[in-house]
């Protein structure tokens, strides 16, 4: 009995086709939203961006595990936190979870079709981790004043150490990604990556 299966398959193909068309139109907005892309050009960019998403998520997980769970420096709810900060914090956290999952599947897809440039991916990973750390240190703690690194002490030395470490990670990541772009690797795309990687950060 496949009476119902026929129209179902038709609609699925239809949606798949329209989706393919939209991906071909290639909007950069989709990429920043954490969407896996399926383009033949720019395996380097895919490698960097997918790993960047994973780096962001992993850094967020480290933050959660080390500072919430192990050290107990953060609190679940800090009464000093303004409501806007709470909202941005929730959004960031939700986005991090989706980013790490999406990044993993994107990376797996690149690997599956032998389009993964390992060095560029490592660069993206470090850059993502560093970028999140700097964002957390500057926007969340300084501007929005949410989840101070350690409650009840002078935050300045902690923030400085945090932000410098984040900047160092970010710089290493960018350097790696750029070097991967400049390298004439066999796996690199013919239309070259240096331009795309330089535009990245």
């Amino acid at each position: 009995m496949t009476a119902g299966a026929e129209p179902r398959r038709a609609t699925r193909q239809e949606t798949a086709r329209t989706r393919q068309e939209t991906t071909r139109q290639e909007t950069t907005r989709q990429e920043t939203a954490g969407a896996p892309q399926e383009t033949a050009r720019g395996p380097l960019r895919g490698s960097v961006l997918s790993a960047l998403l994973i780096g962001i998520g992993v850094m967020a997980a480290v933050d959660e595990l080390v500072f919430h769970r192990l050290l107990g420096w953060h609190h679940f709810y800090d009464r000093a936190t303004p409501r806007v900060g709470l909202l941005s914090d929730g959004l960031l956290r939700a986005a991090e979870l989706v980013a790490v999952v999406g990044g993993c599947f994107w990376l797996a897809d690149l690997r599956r079709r032998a389009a993964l440039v390992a060095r560029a991916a490592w660069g993206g990973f470090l850059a993502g981790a560093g970028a999140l750390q700097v964002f957390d240190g500057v926007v969340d703690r300084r501007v929005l004043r949410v989840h101070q690194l350690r409650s009840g002490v002078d935050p300045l030395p902690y923030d400085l150490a945090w932000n410098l470490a984040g900047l160092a990670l970010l710089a290493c990541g960018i350097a790696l990604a750029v070097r991967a772009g400049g390298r004439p690797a066999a796996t690199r795309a013919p239309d070259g990556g240096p331009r795309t990687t330089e535009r990245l950060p």
Partner: protein
Amino acid sequence: MTPGQHAGWTAWLPALLAMLVHATVYLVAVRRAGREGGEPAARTRRWSPWRTASWLSGCVLLGLALSPLVPPGDVGHMVRHLLLGMFAPLGLIMAAPMTLLLRVAPRSLARRLTRLLRTRVVHVISHPVTAALISVGGLYAVTLTPLYAAGLANPALHHLVDHLYLASGCLFTWAVAGPDPAPHRPGVPTRAAVLIGAAAAHGWLAKHLYATVPGFQEAAQVMYYGGDVAELLLAVGLFAAWYRRVGRRRPVPAPA
């Protein structure tokens, strides 16, 4: 059974009944789908055992939510909300019940169902944004209004809230990551964005309740971290489906 539960086996009746009925209906349909199948193509495509396993785990979670293992009070309410509104729907929806129904239903019923799926009302309701608004909005409506206290006291209202959680949870799961047919479903970026928004709203509500409702701290933390796990699983469902779809469309290149 946890200590202090001496209600006897009758307390388990709703849980067992819900589990048995749902599991039986699905298993009977799977049996029919495997046995019939007019075309050879349909017969060779056997119903995936993973889907059956997914459905059965959904049934277990459903039973768990209705069982006397769930403690009374705020924590219990939140545990039931998580199980009925998030985890049970994941198991049930990932089992593709509508696809199964379309496969085994008589031709006329299947045609009517597909026609129903194409109506404008279904398009609007099954859009991820609408589904998220209904699902998260329902949760806000229950927890932030006197409905919450009334639900703790009145059993009929309590059941109504349980059904609301389950129905809206299934709708949201289907809209974001369900393998069942959903005409005019937006692409992966939109659905991922909606998932982020809904999860953020859920987490914000948990922290808000933590801060404003006295004695709600433990329940709020259960809600917060449980919501994270559910979001993670939904994201895996969404992207895994994308991964499979892309792989099917593109032949795997020979290793260079």
